[in-house]
């Protein structure tokens, strides 16, 4: 074993050791980002590498969730900062980042619309700090200084970031 590979192996081992307690802490933090208010047609969530689960009113939504609507599907959501949003048909939205702890000043809201359409009315996070809230798409991103906006993203522009993780952990574009 050369010195270089020994060094690399040590680094890998170190990063694995560091990652274990981190992932444990993240698994404990199960505060929802929001909840489903309404569903029509087909709507589902991809969470933690598991197979797609159909969504119904009252279901909780978490950071890192990937939401899908079918060809006839729509989905209405209310997030914990009281922002409201909805997806039109054939849409994919990832809740990339959601943090709402105003007492600690910890705020973040980053959503990614890979394709489809969306309506959104901003809530407390944008009122407290508009810098931390945005909606990304493969082609553009929207910075929000309050109130209601609509966005559409044609399919066919998805990047590797917009691919769903399959239950086996392999990346596959849907």
């Amino acid at each position, binding site marked *: 074993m050369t010195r270089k590979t020994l060094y690399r192996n040590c680094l890998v081992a170190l990063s694995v050791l560091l990652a274990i307690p981190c992932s444990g802490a993240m698994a404990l933090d199960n505060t929802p980002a*929001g*909840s489903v*208010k*309404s569903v*029509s047609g087909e709507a589902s969530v991809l969470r933690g590498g598991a197979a797609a689960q159909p969504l119904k*009113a*009252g279901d*909780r939504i978490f950071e890192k969730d990937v939401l899908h609507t079918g060809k006839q599907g*729509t*989905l*209405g*959501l*209310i997030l*914990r900062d*009281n922002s*409201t*949003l*909805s*997806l*039109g*048909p054939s*849409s994919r939205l990832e809740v990339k980042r959601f943090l709402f702890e*105003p*007492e600690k000043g910890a705020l973040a809201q980053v959503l990614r619309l890979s394709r489809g*359409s*969306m*309506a*959104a*009315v*901003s809530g407390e996070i944008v009122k407290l700090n508009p810098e931390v809230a945005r909606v990304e*798409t*493969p*082609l*553009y*991103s*929207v*910075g*929000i*200084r*309050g*109130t*209601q*906006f*609509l*966005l*559409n*993203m*044609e399919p066919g*522009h998805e990047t590797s970031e917009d691919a769903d993780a399959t239950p086996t952990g392999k990346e596959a574009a849907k």
Partner: protein
Amino acid sequence: MSSLRRILILSCVLCAALFFAGCAKPRNVVQLVPDPDGHVGVVQVTTKGGVAELSKAGCAVRVANGKSAPTPPEDLTDAESEALFGQARRALPTAPVRFVLYFETDGAKLTPESQTLLPQVLATAKQRQSKDIAVVGHASRLGDENFNIELSRKRAEFVSRMLIKEGIAKESLEITSHGSKNPLVVSQRLNEPKNRRVEVTVR
């Protein structure tokens, strides 16, 4: 003769196809619309090629690709807005409704006025068929903060019990205690009555 005509027709079709392709506007669109209360805000659309700002109700920009800047803001026709966003807009939930219930000093007893608000909280929860209700307890600055956290938790639990008794499902409730650190009003009074409260948000 017939082959000449065929070439003529073919070139006409080709020209028309090119014409319409040139006209087709990108359908990657961001539109600003007024809030339910009529207020209009601002959004910024950013690509690798530049930034466009929307600040007028109904205005929209288009993005052709990731490299060029968004188009200058334009008014979107109602027909196009409906085609792009109609279904999403109709699925947008109405804004959550918030109630503030006040308490007597130093305990988990509602003021008589706030007691009369409870039926309204219940009616709203039923009408919205809400399965997500936040109950957040607060206290004024009077006294030790550990005591205040405990007191605001008792207040939130008291309101939650009342809601459960009246038929709200326990799984729908999210109970939190904020102590005195999240006041409704900033006040010189340690024992500010407006901060002795439970906020109920019906989503």
